[in-house]
């Protein structure tokens, strides 16, 4: 069970890299708990989560090779 994690903007500044692999997590809730242990600054929670490019609003089950993106507030344009 492997989850590909993508970090952007301010979140990538915190993680220090834009791609991570996280193993043995079954939901987005578990994933963020794991990430927050390694990167306590993520606890501020100022980001949305997209699973396979779709933004999710609540805890979501994950499957092997899913891609989870951590999206800080957009500032394009």
């Amino acid at each position: 069970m492997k989850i590909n994690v993508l970090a952007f903007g301010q979140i990538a500044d915190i993680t220090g890299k834009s791609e991570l692999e996280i193993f043995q997590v079954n939901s987005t809730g578990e994933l963020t708990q794991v990430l927050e242990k390694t990167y306590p600054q993520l606890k501020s929670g100022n980001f949305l989560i997209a699973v396979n490019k779709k933004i999710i609003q609540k805890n979501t089950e994950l499957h092997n090779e899913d891609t989870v993106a951590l999206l800080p507030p957009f500032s394009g344009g």
Partner: protein
Amino acid sequence: MKSEKKHKVFVEGPVSPSFIAESIEKHNKKFSIGAHSIFLGQVRNDKHGEQEVAAIEYTSYREMAEEKFHEIREDAFKKFPLICMHIYHSLGVVKAGEISLMVFTSSVHRKDAMDACEEIVERIKKEVPVWGKEIFSNENTRWKINN
């Protein structure tokens, strides 16, 4: 997904005035068009204390952004009777005074082009995963916040 490739949105660096002129000129055989509405986003030299923004560096979650641009495009064509629509957004460094976003809509009557253009710009700002990092004259950086 094929239609996204047909409508490439991201460009490296700024959107140049000559590129905009070419985009306009390409419509001169589309004789049913009566109105074009064009929005251009230009990089400001916003002040932060004693520093000022010299440039913005844009990054994106590209695959998701392209899907979102496609969705915005399809929705606008469904909602408004548009003849043409073009969206261009910069990636990489765009200096203060340069253009980082162009939304260009065309229709028979003016209201449709104007309403569509405005709605597309609002949706891009809110929904498309693009991030601007402000680069100050002293090379400090700060993540831009949209309002």
